[in-house]
């Protein structure tokens, strides 16, 4: 009986791999559940590429099957929540970026606010928000800064903003104040590659 069950698992796994050949690299025990998650995501109109990448990442890292499945499931859930917050017209890169932002700690309402504030694609503002949190900026400060800038700043300005914040943090500024100060300077229109990196008071100096 056990052998039959094993065979069934293998057959389902093989079929799954046929539909998405990259799944062949994934642990047999995880293959079918991951394929099922891909199917649900596809049916829901969510991007599946990030899910495949998450499964492959886990595989390369030698993570056990249950961890891989859990990670893919969680990402699928995040993608769904991001799409809900960003609206049905959200493009796949925006949904992905939204999911990453949620994972970093932003709330769905922040995503919705961004959608209302900015009539251009949201991939970059969401990525900047996520990257700031990754650099240690508290979620609230990062969110506030990005929301203010998102209304008027171009994508290139937002990326430059993130770089300037990371630079200030590297020079010793507290992450929260770095985000606020640089946002202020950016709004003042000072941000471009050729100008001095920052303005404003309380700027940390290299020791």
């Amino acid at each position, binding site marked *: 009986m056990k052998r039959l069950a094993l065979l069934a698992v293998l057959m389902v796994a093989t079929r799954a791999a046929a539909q998405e050949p990259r799944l062949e690299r994934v642990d047999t025990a995880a293959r079918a559940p991951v394929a099922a998650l891909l199917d649900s995501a596809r049916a829901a109109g969510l991007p599946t590429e990030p899910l495949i990448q998450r499964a492959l*990442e886990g595989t390369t890292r030698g993570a056990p099957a249950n961890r891989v499945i859990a*990670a893919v499931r*969680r990402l699928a859930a995040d993608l769904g929540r991001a799409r809900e917050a960003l609206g049905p017209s959200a493009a796949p890169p925006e949904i992905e970026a939204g999911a990453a932002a949620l994972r970093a700690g932003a709330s769905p309402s922040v995503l919705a606010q961004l959608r209302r504030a900015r009539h251009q694609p949201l991939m970059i503002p969401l990525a900047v928000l*996520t*990257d700031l949190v990754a650099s240690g900026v508290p979620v609230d400060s990062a969110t506030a800064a990005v929301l203010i800038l998102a209304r008027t700043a171009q994508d290139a300005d937002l990326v430059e903003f*993130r770089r300037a914040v990371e630079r200030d943090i590297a020079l010793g500024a507290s992450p929260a104040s770095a985000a606020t100060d640089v946002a202020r300077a950016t709004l003042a229109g000072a941000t471009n590659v050729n100008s001095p990196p920052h303005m404003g008071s309380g700027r940390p100096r290299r020791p």
Partner: protein
Amino acid sequence: MFDRIVAHLRAPVRIDPAFDERVMAEIATLPVPTPVRPAAAWRRLAPFAGLAVAATALVLIARPTPPTRRLQFVVVAPQAATVSLVGDFNDWDAARTPMRLLRADGPVWSAVVPLAPGRYHYAFLVNGSRWLPDPAAPVASDDGFGAPSSVVTVRGT
């Protein structure tokens, strides 16, 4: 002294012929660069301009390749025999982007990857098994796999 410097700078430099193959491999995916019509001809063809624009738009939509930037990833790994770059951009496949030493005995490994604009997770795989996030890069949110990955954002033009 100054003359010696100039003489040195003017000395021929030999670029490895493998360079030619890399260039030709990259342009193999590009469309043929047909000559662009000068402006005067367009004025004569103004009545047909609308049609031409529509045809061009169709071609542009059909062309799939986004502009890529070439990014260099660098890591110091003194004890490594091999290092691979793995990430979203190469299906986390250690065989796809092996890194190479910048100097034969030195600890610095490097790889250059063309990336379309976007946000990618990545890490280094040392000796086929040791997971090494990039110490110089922001950290990705926890995926539940243990030590995190790193993040790189590539912006558009």
